């Protein structure tokens, strides 16, 4: 994977080898979410290019990128609140099994999608809550469901935008466990925006630091934390 630059995100270039867990950190307004929007195709860059698994995806609309193996979770939870958790995941699973749009059959008929959906709920720890309407889940459970939906699209590369945002302190370790499990079971490539440094430290192989839209460091967690330049960029201390 290779990333090219843009303007709010200013000339950012880095490559993420397959199977790595990379966290993106930086002060507010550094352009982290903008970077994610560029990667997932919600914004288009004014210059530069985005490559995914060897292909240039710069001009692709969001849905095509997803079909190309990119999956994304949002900073604010975006589950389908009126559907049950199983319907949520099944919808996602069905999307990645095209050719199953037979409308003379019920949605439950697609066996591959059904199994994938059940597996995803199990993986994030929502087994047993299949029939619960997503809108009535607790916030933490919604974030888990968000991840389960993501898993159902069977992405090769996951973009996680602050997976622990708004999750109560007690539930943070649970979320971490879920993310770790996804990593171990699936061996996916993950990019994560996160502010909780202990979370970043725990999960990442590499940490990328953005400040004012520019990439100021890209290294192992330990090296990045020790870098005085990063510290000044982050806190404005000179």
């Amino acid at each position: 994977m290779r990333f090219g630059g843009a303007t709010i995100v200013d000339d950012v270039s880095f490559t993420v080898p397959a199977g790595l867990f990379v966290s993106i950190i930086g002060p507010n307004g550094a352009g982290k979410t903008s970077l994610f929007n560029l990667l997932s195709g919600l914004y288009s860059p004014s210059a530069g290019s985005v490559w995914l698994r060897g292909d240039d995806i710069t001009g692709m609309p969001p849905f095509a990128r997803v079909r190309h193996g990119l999956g994304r979770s949002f900073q604010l939870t975006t589950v389908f609140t009126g559907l049950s958790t199983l319907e949520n995941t099944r919808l996602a699973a069905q999307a990645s099994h095209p050719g199953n749009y037979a409308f003379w059959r019920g949605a439950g008929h697609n066996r591959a999608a059904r199994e994938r959906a059940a597996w995803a709920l199990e993986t994030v720890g929502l087994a047993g809550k299949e029939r619960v309407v997503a809108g009535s889940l607790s916030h933490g459970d919604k974030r888990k469901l968000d991840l389960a939906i993501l898993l159902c699209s069977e992405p090769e590369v996951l973009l996680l935008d602050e997976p622990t945002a708004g999750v109560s302190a007690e539930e943070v370790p649970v979320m971490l466990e879920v993310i770790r499990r996804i990593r171990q079971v699936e061996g996916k490539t993950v990019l994560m925006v996160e502010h909780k440094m202990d979370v970043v430290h725990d999960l990442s192989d590499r940490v990328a630091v953005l400040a004012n839209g520019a990439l100021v460091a890209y290294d192992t967690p330990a090296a990045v934390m020790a870098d005085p330049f990063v510290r000044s960029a982050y806190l404005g201390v000179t």
Partner: protein
Amino acid sequence: MTARTVSKMTPGGLVRSLAPVVVLLLLLVVPRLSIEVPVLFNGPLDRPGNLRLLAVGFTLGIAALSYNLLFGFTGVLSFGHALFFGAGVYLPAIALRHWEWSVVPSLLFGLAGGTVLALAVGALSLRTEGVYLAMVTLAFAQAGAVIVGKNVGDLTGGEEGLSLRTRGLPEWMVGVVNTDNLYWMALVTLIVVYLLAWRLVTSPVGQVWKGIRENERRVEMLGLRPYVFKLLAFVISGALATCGGMVYLFLASGATPRVVGANFTVTLLLMVIIGGSGSLWGPVAGAMLYHFLDIRLTDWAASDTVASLPAVLSRPLRDPLFIFGVIFILLVMFFPRGIAGAFGGRLRPFRHVFGGAVARPAVAPGKTTE
């Protein structure tokens, strides 16, 4: 917060699932029921006038049901739906009268025409969203109304409308004595459309529609193209409305400009809101109720009882549309889920789509919130 689960089969659920069967059986035998239902119906139930009243209600039910596939299940607010119902009424009428086709080709022509029209209007309108979509579809409906009303190409008969040419029709469809056949035709069409719609909304496609209603952006991030699915909904609902229009043509023995244009779409919206946008049967019930009240209030307003009332009361009663307007406002303000919402278990889909400010930030990523 307690977690709400999707209801399983309970004794109450059993009653709820048996009720439609009972209602259906009753409706099927209505043309053979010679009983009086005072106040509600004039004379015995199997009188042609009464059968026609119910059957027209069924066709309006088809229109409302099809409209709700788009509005209630996919979350697309179009103001052009009357156009497709109107196409179902006018196209076969034109083929029958001017080209003297026989029934089956005329109906096939109507269905094809309505579907193609829905495809064209949908393909263009769905490139916009929200209020823009509402206005573009409104404009298309207006264009249809203009073509019909101004008698373009001398085909539609203008304000006069177009009477049904009965000569090409099979005998069982013609004449007051055969009203029961038309009644059954309308009822069977309604049932078929209903089953089709049910199959659709519970199919994978229906799941995607609901997903779009809840959060279009998220659907896109699942790797699906919302445009394609919305267009599918638009075309299917348009085609189903066309079917309703075709049956209506035979019941009304002709076409009048009333069935195209924005006012009829507004009426459909009224039926859907009265019935409840969250279910399939709600809009059908809403349409039946609307039509029934419309006809009954008009009859009633002409009666001596009303004439003897003081003007403050008698005048509004002469104007059913005024009463519907008031009912509509009250429903929107206080019972946004309609009749179906009052009975239904798990019918609450709009809270989150139309719930406004609280739900909206979810679709706008990029803005950091602390």
